[in-house]
């Protein structure tokens, strides 16, 4: 049963209701029910003759100004619209399940295990150039962050994963990522690995390493710039 059943309009709440001119009732009904904004002629035609439309519209606009619905003029026409400041109320966030591209997943995995890692290093491990688009995707999703610059020619940016990454993949810390033996045990690597093949022990220690230096101001803007679609690797 609904909470509304006990509702009965409380009459004494609006002492001025009686004093409100009938024209205002008519105008608000007309403007509410209309499928499109109405011009003054259309309104005048439908209102009782002798109505002072100017005054009535003005009073109605004033009445509604502080409300969640305003009476607005659009061109030469009038319409009710929800108040501008309430646009947020009329937006609905729909969750859209999306699959990460294979390139993005591989790049993310390399960052997770090899962090801090530069774009060139990712490309070397993957044996494919063009990691920029993928990095931008991952930055946009918010699972990686630029954390510093490598002390090397070109001072490339180093990337690491962040807390959102841990949270999404249900990891307490990067040390929870399985090592080579566990990956082998899970059947993810087959037997034909060369001698000396290794999987790094990832660390998300925020302290910069010896071969890293901090990002400068402006670096973040740069790396978060909207990616150009042409570069995207999907």
């Amino acid at each position, binding site marked *: 049963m609904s909470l509304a059943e006990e509702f009965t309009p409380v009459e004494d709440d609006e002492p001025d209701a009686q004093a409100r001119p009938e024209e205002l009732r008519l105008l608000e009904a007309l403007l509410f029910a209309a499928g499109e904004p109405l011009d003054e002629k259309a309104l005048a035609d439908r209102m009782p003759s002798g109505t002072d439309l100017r005054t009535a519209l003005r009073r109605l606009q004033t009445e509604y100004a502080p409300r969640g619905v305003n009476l607005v003029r659009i061109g030469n026409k009038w319409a009710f619209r929800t108040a501008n400041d309430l646009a947020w109320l009329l937006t609905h966030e729909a969750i859209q399940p*999306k699959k990460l591209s294979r390139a993005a997943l591989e790049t993310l*995995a390399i960052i997770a295990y090899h962090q801090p890692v530069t774009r060139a290093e990712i490309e070397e491990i993957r044996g494919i150039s063009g990691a920029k688009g993928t990095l931008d995707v991952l930055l946009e999703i918010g699972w990686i962050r630029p954390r510093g610059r490598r002390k090397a020619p070109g001072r490339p940016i180093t990337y690491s994963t962040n807390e959102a990454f841990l949270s999404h993949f*249900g990891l307490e810390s990067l040390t929870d990522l399985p090592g080579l033996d566990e990956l082998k045990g899970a059947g993810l690597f087959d037997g034909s690995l060369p001698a000396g093949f290794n999987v790094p022990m990832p660390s998300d220690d925020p302290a910069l390493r010896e071969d890293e230096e901090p990002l400068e101001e402006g670096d973040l803007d740069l790396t978060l710039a909207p990616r150009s679609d042409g570069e995207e690797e999907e």
Partner: protein
Amino acid sequence: MTDTGSAEIVALAAEPERAADEPALIVDVEGFEGPLDLLLRLAREQKVDLAKISILALADQYLTFIEEARRLRLELAADYLVMAAWLAYLKSRLLLPEPPGGPGESAADLANALALRLQRLEAIRLAAKRLLERPQLGRDVFQRGAPEPINEIKRPQWSATLYDLLTAYARERQKQALARVRLTTRKVWSLADARAILERLVEVATEWTAIDQYLIEYVVEPSMRATALASSLAASLEMAREGQLELQQATAFAPLYMRRRSAPVPDGTVGQS
């Protein structure tokens, strides 16, 4: 319901002015909503409260109507005929003295049940009428003419799992690991490479020179030594055969010396082993 039942009957009776062998009409499409509806209209003729109606009189009226319809060769829907049979039965029960302790309901009970059915149908018709008199949406009251649609912001939810991540990592690393092994096996000195280098070397080797020294200068990686030596030996033998250089080696595994041959000699002096 503007017409009275009898008016309907008159209309019905007057309507089919056609040859007797023409297909008959079905009465209920002529304005009656079934036998109860017909009974209700006939009851109105009695102009009394439905609760006090004479069921006997009503049964008579109904049966008369049915007979009239038959006389006019109107085809009646089965519902009407079933009702006629039932009313004829009820009438006979009502007219005969009730057998004491007879089976089932008394005739009066049956008549009352019929009266109740008629009242119920009338009540529901009244309710329908009053429902229809209510203000209706789109006719009397209106909803917002220009609703403002809710903006949908699509928020992606990424479906990657840890398993996906690990699989991707293993796949990527394995692929590269195997690719690198192939790359190193390709790192050999081909005979052509060796010969090109030797041809450049013999330009300066006018005196006996240990070939190893030159080669090590060129071959930085120790892992390449074997292939470099093998290929250059084969290339140098080839070049000696062509008379471009001379080779000499003191004993097995001793350094191999070579020098450019100044002038062609008919009989090759390929080094003694």
